[in-house]
């Protein structure tokens, strides 16, 4: 059993009781109140529970990591009463990753999810407007995937000379 | 312990704002500044002001109506054009290694006695003036100076050859004193003895000549075992002289040298 954080004492057992199959409590890091691992299907419900019961009213960040064999989507939520962040991680397959959108729960997650789609190619089901944000429309790649290689500076230089 | 309060700001309307507020307050404030700046406008007439001697310049530039705080002063640790002392440069490549913008290229320089050595050539078209090169320089021969007038109308003029950087060094610009001290517990060069073939490449290319090839005893071949084909020498690094440039690692053909904590 991982070390528990006093402010979260009522919440963590509550959430594990509510979603026994879908939430795993990971070892706590010192910069987080708690780190929870959630199965992809129940993310929106866990998020809603955290907002309504756990008073995590601020969705600070939705981001992702490409671990080559799988993708990881991270949610960082902030609570004004607990004064800290909680981290949700979701593991997704590399091919055709889908996860429910939390835009309905926090409108602020809208562009974060768009960016995660843009950069890592994670599809957020139920997102009202899943377009690219930073890269142009019709761009072929998801640049933060590890399969997207940067050019070596020397190569770029050679190219620039020939242009 | 700290005192942190929440402070809700009251509305700032003074009671007479309805009467005087329309234009009088802002116009009066601006007019006050106008009168002050009639005598001392804050502008620094850059190309003209610069021609003053440095000390006079510092004294003469004042903020309007204020105590002379010293606008436009260039302090000595300003990161501007580099100065290179070619004579003490040991061609260790550290500046080129540590450059995030790959704007440093090591080019051969004639040392005078018929020999050449490699010294950094800097392309200011790419340089971001981060100072990592001068931080990394173990000999303190590549420093950054307060010089900032590198503007030119030809792209080629932005590339400063080592000789040109040496001219900056010879000029009277004050030297940038900052240099990162080497950490106490820094890594050292370690040798994977099984892989070494004793080829001498590391010792040959070491800029500080701190690698010496020492003889190791040739083991007796056991029955049925074939001894590896190699020269029976291996490098020994003098840590106090080593500048941790990594040249030996990059020239090693067998990847047998590596960084690591001292055992």
């Amino acid at each position: 059993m991982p070390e528990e954080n006093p402010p979260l004492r009522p919440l963590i057992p509550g959430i594990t009781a509510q979603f026994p199959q879908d939430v795993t409590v990971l070892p706590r890091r010192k910069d987080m109140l708690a780190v929870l691992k959630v199965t992809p299907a129940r993310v929106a419900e866990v998020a809603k529970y955290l907002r309504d019961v756990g008073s995590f009213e601020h969705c600070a960040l939705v981001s992702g990591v490409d671990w080559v064999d799988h993708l990881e989507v991270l949610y960082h939520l902030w609570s004004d009463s607990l004064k800290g962040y909680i981290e949700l991680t979701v593991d997704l397959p590399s091919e055709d990753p889908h996860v429910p959108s939390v835009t309905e729960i926090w409108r602020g997650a809208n562009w974060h999810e768009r960016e995660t789609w843009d950069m890592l190619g994670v599809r957020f089901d139920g997102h009202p407007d899943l377009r690219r944000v930073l890269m142009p429309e019709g761009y072929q790649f998801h640049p933060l995937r590890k399969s997207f290689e940067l050019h070596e500076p020397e190569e770029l230089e050679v190219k620039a000379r020939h242009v | 312990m700290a005192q942190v309060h929440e402070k809700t700001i009251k509305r700032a309307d003074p009671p007479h704002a309805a009467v005087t507020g329309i234009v009088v307050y802002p116009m009066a404030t601006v007019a006050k500044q106008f009168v002050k700046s009639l005598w001392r406008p804050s502008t620094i007439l850059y190309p003209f002001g610069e021609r003053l001697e440095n000390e006079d310049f510092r004294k003469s530039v004042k903020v309007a109506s204020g105590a002379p705080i010293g606008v436009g002063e260039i302090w000595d640790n300003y990161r501007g054009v580099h100065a290179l002392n070619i004579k003490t440069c040991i061609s260790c490549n550290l500046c080129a290694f540590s450059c995030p913008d790959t704007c440093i290229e090591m080019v051969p320089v004639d040392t005078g006695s018929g020999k050449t050595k490699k010294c950094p050539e800097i392309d200011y078209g790419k340089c971001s003036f981060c100072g990592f090169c001068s931080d990394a320089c173990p000999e303190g021969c590549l420093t950054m100076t307060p010089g900032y007038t590198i503007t030119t109308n030809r792209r080629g003029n932005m590339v400063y050859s080592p000789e040109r950087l040496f001219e900056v060094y010879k000029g009277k610009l004050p030297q940038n004193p900052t240099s990162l001290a080497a950490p106490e517990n820094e890594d050292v060069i370690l040798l994977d003895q099984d892989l070494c073939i004793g080829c001498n490449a590391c010792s040959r290319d070491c800029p500080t000549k701190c690698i010496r090839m020492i003889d190791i005893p040739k083991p007796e071949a056991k029955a049925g075992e074939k001894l590896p084909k190699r020269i029976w020498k291996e490098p020994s690094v003098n840590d106090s002289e080593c500048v941790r440039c990594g040249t030996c690692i990059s020239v090693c053909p067998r990847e047998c040298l590596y960084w690591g904590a001292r055992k």
Partner: protein
Amino acid sequence: MTATIYSVVNALVVLLLNLLGPYVPGSGPYGPFVATWLSYLVVGGIVLAFSMVNVLVFIWWERKLLGRFMDRRGAMHVGYAGLLQNLADGLKLFRKQPFAPKDADEMGYYFGPTAYLVFSMAILGFLPISFGVSGGLVPLSLLVALALFSFAPLFIFIASWSSNNKYSLIGGMRTAAQLVAYEIPLLLAVVAVVALTGSFDINTIVGDQASYGWFALPLLLGLIIFFIAMLAEVERIPFDLPEAEAELVEGWSTEYGGMLFAFTMLGDYVRALIGSYLIVLLFLGGWSMPWGLSNYPLAGLVFFQVKTYIVFAIFIWVRASLPRVRTDQLLQIGWKRMLPLAMANIIWALALVVWGYPNIHWPVM
């Protein structure tokens, strides 16, 4: 008193033509015709030169003053203290190739700023600028000046419409709305002055002020209304909505470049010049000087110009200290505040007349 610049020029031209005798067509049957048009040209040239010199100094004056208001120096490099900077800018703009955008209506595009500048400058032909110095003697000179002054929205709208650009069009619409809204308080403020003098002739108005004191004192409210309305008329901050650079790129002159852009800017400044002139003429005593010096035209001209520059300095001061208002706020100020105030001002002026201004017999309490 009856000599105008036009009559002097005409006399000189006729004399010249007579001297040249049979070698030029001036002596033939078309002689008077040629002489008249030749003198029109010369007077036009004089007005052009006068207005351009004034505008260049105006821009310099604005640059320097605004600079000091903002704690900087203003133009410094070309000429002494940047005096020639505007000439350099003008030369640069003059050398640019004039061209119209692809889908612009070329005729309107070229016509708009040109007419804007020309009609603004033409006012100077009617304004007396010193004791006995004026381009042409027109009995209703004030009326003519204000009529020409109110042409501007039309040309701005033509220019913005034919630019075929949404920013230009919005700027042009705003200009039209703004100028129309502020034309009325402006004219009503003038009505008060006219009521006091009983004449539309600027010479008479200035003469009255020389005799009885500046109208700024009895008609202070009128001066303030006229000043604010003039700020809006010449599109200066806080009423420079037509070229609000934060929301419309450059307002109605977005698509203009080169000399046409110079025309729009020159037109603005000529209008500012005329606005300052009108304020000085109507409220600040024109060229009338204390100590009975009014009989020296040149001294009067200098005095008049100094007053004009001081008035323009107040324009600049306002620009340096106030932000821009919003469209709806601008129109609200125009219709809801300025108009009633202007009405009140007229009533006040009429009361003054009834009480026998300038020798006021206050009604018995």
